[in-house]
């Protein structure tokens, strides 16, 4: 029986879809059987980021409404031998096409066959969000070092705690710009973690390679030489229960790393 992890953030544009794609890819690289589920019905793009858009035949709404079997709708990622699948969202209808109970049933069925179900959540706190968290066992909250994103993450954590079927959410801080954090123009990692008071599971630097890779439909996690890739792979290993220290954001900069180390030392 697998585990379902919802990737959520509240605010749009902080990197939920990229994070979902890369965590899914990194888990598959670790040899786990992974199914990515895009619940952003009407505004799907996990398929684009994964480079699987052209192979979609059926989608999530087709499955829920009984027009096809689950396995017919799943898109296999050829880069992995039978380890990575995608259940795409529908593009022609909207979020009200699915109910939380239906999602719950769907995710439970997927959990029989997969080790990890990664659920990409839409922005917002409305029905789409309720659908996305319906079947989840764990949650990862993605935020960026911006006040508005942190505020929304706080709201989302509150809602996740209220749902209380999900164990305490973990935090990913995305798009970190080291020089801005150093100069104090951006919230720093300690500040965000202390404010949200949930466990930090990873930090990802702002990297142009991520955008490039997404546009080519190849998750950055496939590229072993990128900093962001290593960050995502580390997140995946932490999900698997390994204890891995946070990577330094930049080798030249000791102060932030020192801070992070200090932070974890204190914890």
């Amino acid at each position, binding site marked *: 029986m697998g585990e379902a992890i919802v990737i959520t953030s509240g605010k749009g544009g902080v990197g939920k879809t990229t994070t979902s794609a890369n965590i899914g890819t990194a888990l598959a690289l670790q040899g786990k059987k992974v199914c990515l589920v895009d619940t952003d019905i009407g505004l799907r793009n996990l398929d684009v980021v994964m480079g699987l858009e052209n192979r979609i035949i059926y989608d999530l709404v087709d499955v829920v409404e009984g027009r096809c079997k689950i396995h017919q709708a799943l898109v296999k990622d050829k880069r992995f031998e039978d380890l990575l699948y995608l259940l795409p969202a529908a593009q022609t209808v909207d979020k009200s096409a699915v109910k939380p109970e239906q999602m719950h049933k769907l995710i439970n069925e997927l959990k029989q066959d997969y080790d990890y179900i990664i659920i990409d959540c839409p922005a917002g706190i409305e029905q789409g969000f309720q659908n996305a968290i319906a079947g989840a066992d764990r949650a990862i909250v993605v935020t960026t070092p911006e006040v508005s994103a942190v*505020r*929304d993450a*706080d*709201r989302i*954590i*509150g*809602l996740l*705690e209220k749902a209380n079927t999900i164990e305490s959410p973990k935090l990913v801080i995305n798009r970190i710009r080291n020089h801005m954090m150093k100069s104090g123009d951006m919230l720093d990692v300690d500040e965000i973690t202390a*404010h949200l*008071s949930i466990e930090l599971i990873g930090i990802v630097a702002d990297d142009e390679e991520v955008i490039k890779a997404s546009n080519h439909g190849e998750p950055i996690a496939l590229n072993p030489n990128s900093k962001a890739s290593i960050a995502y792979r580390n997140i995946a290993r932490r999900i698997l229960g390994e204890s891995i220290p946070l990577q330094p954001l930049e080798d030249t900069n000791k102060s932030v790393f020192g801070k992070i180390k200090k932070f974890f030392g204190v914890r």
Partner: protein
Amino acid sequence: MKKRQNVTIKGTKDGIVLHLDDSCSYEELKKELDEKLSANQSTHTERHLTPVKVDVGNRYLNDAQREEIKNLIRQKKNLVVDDIESYVVTREEADKLKAENEVVTVARIIRSGQVLEVPGDLLLIGDVNPGGTVIAGGNIFIMGSLKGIAHAGVFGNDQAVITASSMQPSQLRIHDCINRAPDKAQNKEKREMECAYIDDNHQIIIDRLQVLINLRPNLNRFEGGH
């Protein structure tokens, strides 16, 4: 033998007390009270109003009955009812009274969009994040940092106070007073162990926690000891 009196008037050092027996019917009591107060008409000649207390023992009076008794006494004499004392309260009243005087302890982080409301005092073990709100009928004591909104004395208690280990609220409200954070973040001094209260000019003041010891002595609930 003469029937036991249902209404007795006694003078005590606290003033006049009307004892109303609790074993007769309410109608009977009313009748006798009426008679008794009428009979003694001549003995009272002072013009000014005399406050009295009414002791109804183990009788429960609802609001209408209380009003009736008060009116009855007020009509007959130069007496005005100060207080009606009864040993009996309903469960509802007792619960309400208890809730209003209770300190509710909550160990939680109040996050953006969440509202925590208690009828009495609130002791929060955790933070109030920006966008979060805590509301209390009484005082609010926050062990963590207050970055959201706190509203104390919401039912009209302007003696209520708000305290926090770290005071950086977006808004403070006590009773009907509102105070908000300055638009420009001022110098980043740590605002630790502070309290907020309403001063004589009906303004919310933020000060060191310790000033409350003199300003709000009624916060003390500790009795006895040295």
